[in-house]
C-alpha cells in the first residue's frame, strides 16, 4: 500500500497554562504579554498525536508546518522527537498578526508547494486567539472534504474515518482523501517523549527548512492583519481565599467538612 502523507499545521504560542500572574495586557500596543515559555498549541499537539497513531497502523509520512513571524525550531523540534518525519518553518515579518483567512491562505500556498498529501490535520483552535477558523478555511481554500472536531481518526482504503464530536455523543463520518480534519483534545495528549530523545533532537545537526513568504505565498499583498481595535483585561476574577489550615490532613478535612455544613 502506498504511503499516506499527513500534514500537520502547528502553531507556536506562549504556554496557555501560564499562571495568571505571568499574564498581562498591554492595551496601548494591543498585545497580551505572557511571561512563559513558548510551546506548541495544545490542540495542535493532539493533532500530531492523531497522526502518530495513524502511523502506527499504516505506512505514513508526517510533515509539520508552522507559520509565524518568527518560529522557534527548538519548540517545534518536539514534533520530530515525538515521531514526525519532517518539519518546515514558514517565517516572515509579513505573517505577524494575520487574520485567520490570511493564515489559512498562506498555509494553503505552502501545502500546494509541498504538492502531495492525503490528510491535513490542524488543532480545533489555537490557544492564543481561540479563533477556531484556520482549519476549516484551509480545507475550503484547497477544496477538500472538511471534518470538524475529531475525537478519533483512522485511514482505510483511501478514506479517512472520523468520530466527530456532536452534542450528546459522536458521529462516525467518512470522506475520501485528501481531506482536512480539525482535532479536539479527546484524541488524547501527545505521547511521552523521553528526555534522551528530546535532547538528541534538540542537539541534532539536522537543519530545519525555513521558507520565507516569497518562497511560497502567491498573493502577499492580499494578506490582511486581524482588525483589533481594542484590547483590555478581563474583569478581575480573584477572590479572597480562606485557607483551611491544620497540623494534619485530618484537621484540614474537619474544617472543610464544617465549611460544607455551613453551605448546606
Amino acid at each position, binding site marked *: 500500500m502506498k504511503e499516506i502523507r499527513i500534514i500537520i499545521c502547528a502553531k507556536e504560542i506562549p504556554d496557555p497554562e501560564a499562571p495568571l500572574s505571568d499574564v498581562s495586557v498591554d492595551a496601548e500596543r494591543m498585545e497580551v504579554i505572557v511571561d512563559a515559555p513558548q510551546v506548541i498549541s495544545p490542540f495542535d499537539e493532539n493533532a500530531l498525536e492523531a497522526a502518530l497513531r495513524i502511523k502506527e497502523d499504516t505506512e505514513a509520512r508526517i510533515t509539520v508546518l508552522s507559520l509565524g513571524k518568527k518560529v522557534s525550531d527548538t519548540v517545534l523540534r518536539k514534533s520530530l522527537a515525538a515521531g514526525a518525519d519532517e518539519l518546515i518553518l514558514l517565517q516572515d515579518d509579513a505573517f505577524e498578526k494575520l487574520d485567520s483567512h490570511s493564515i489559512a491562505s498562506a498555509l494553503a500556498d505552502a501545502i500546494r508547494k509541498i504538492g502531495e498529501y492525503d490528510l491535513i490535520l490542524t488543532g480545533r483552535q489555537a490557544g492564543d486567539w481561540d479563533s477556531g477558523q484556520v482549519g476549516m478555511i484551509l480545507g475550503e481554500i484547497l477544496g477538500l472534504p472538511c471534518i470538524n472536531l475529531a475525537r478519533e481518526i483512522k485511514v482505510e482504503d483511501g478514506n479517512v474515518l472520523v468520530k466527530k464530536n456532536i452534542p450528546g455523543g459522536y458521529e462516525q463520518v467518512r470522506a475520501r482523501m485528501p481531506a482536512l480534519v480539525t482535532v479536539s483534545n479527546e484524541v488524547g495528549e501527545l505521547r511521552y517523549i523521553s528526555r534522551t530523545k528530546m535532547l538528541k533532537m534538540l542537539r541534532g545537526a539536522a537543519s530545519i527548512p525555513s521558507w520565507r513568504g516569497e518562497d511560497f505565498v502567491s498573493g502577499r499583498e492580499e494578506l490582511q492583519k486581524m482588525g483589533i481595535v481594542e484590547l483590555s483585561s478581563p474583569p478581575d476574577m480573584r477572590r479572597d481565599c480562606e485557607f*483551611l489550615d491544620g497540623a494534619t490532613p485530618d484537621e484540614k478535612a474537619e474544617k472543610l467538612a464544617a465549611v460544607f455544613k455551613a*453551605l448546606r
Partner: protein
Amino acid sequence: MSDVLILGEVKEGSLDMRTLELLGAGKKLAGDLGVDLSVVLMGDSISGAAGEAASYGPDRVYKLEHPLLKGFKADLWLKSLEQACKEINPKIFLMSHSFIGMELGPRLACRLNTRLTTDCIDLSIDPEDGLLLRTKPVSGGNAISVFKCPGEPQLATVRGKVFEPVEAVEGKGEIVDIVPEIDESMVKVESLEIVKEEVIALDKADVVVAGGSGLGEEDGFEILQGLSRALSKSFGSVMIGCSRVAVDKGWISSDHQVGLTGSMISPDIYVAVGISGAIQHLVGMIHSKKIIAINTDPNCNMFKVADYGVVEDYEKVIPVLIEKLEEL
C-alpha cells in the same frame, strides 16, 4: 436588502434558547442601524419552527426546507446558507457558537470572501462607519479583544448565555421560502452513524466535584466519586467535572470537561481537586457561587479564585472529609 440576519437552530421541532438570544442580539443591532431583522431556518420539516420564529417579531423568516437538510450535514447546510446569503445579501449575519456555527462560520466566511469573529460576547455598531464591533475573549480569557473587519456580510458567532433572549411580541414576521439548490452529489463527508452517549448535563448540577492532572492517575476520580456520593446526601445534584488535561490523558470522557472548550457552568459549589487553574478552565467555572480548591501547590491559580482552600494531598484529605460528611 441590508438586513441583520441570524441563523436559527431548531431542536426537537422548536427554536433552541440560543436562537432566542441571537434574536435579542440581532434586534438591538438592527435597531441601531435602522434596518430589518431576519431569521434563516434550515431543516427538513420546519414550518412549526418558522411560525414560532415569526412570533418573536423579526421582519422576515427565511425558510430553507428540503428533505436533505434533515439532521446537520455540513456540506449541504453550507451550500444552502451560501445560497441564502447571496439572495438575502445581509449586512450582518450572526450564528450561535454551537457545533453548527463553529463549522459553518469559517467555511461560509471563506466562500463569501468575508471575515468572521468567533465566540463573541458583545456586539455593537461603530457610530463612525456603521461597522460591526465584535468583542471576544482571547488568550483563553486572559484578555478581551474588540475586532472590526472588512467584508460583507459581517459575520460573527455568538457565545451562549450572554445575550438576553428576546420576548415574543404581537404582530408576525413574514415567512419567505427559499428553495435550496442542493443534491446528494454535494456531500463530501458521509455520515455513517450517530452514536448517542449517556452524557451528563453539568449545567444542571448543584455541586460539581472536579479533578485535574493533580489527581495523578485515573483512579483519582474514584475518590472524587466517593466525595460526590457523600455530598449528594446534603446537596441535591452532585456531578463530576474535570479539566481538559484529564480528558487528554484519557482518564475521563469529555462531557465532564469544564472550561472554554467544555461546559461553562455556575453551580452553587465547585470543588476543584488537583486543578491548577489554567485560564481556559477558570472561564468555565468562575461564576460558581462558592469555589473550594484542594491542591498541593499553594501558589496555583485555583487558590486565587477560590473562596476556601486546602493545601494538601487530596488522597489524604478527601477520605477523612467523606467520613466527616457522613456524620453531618
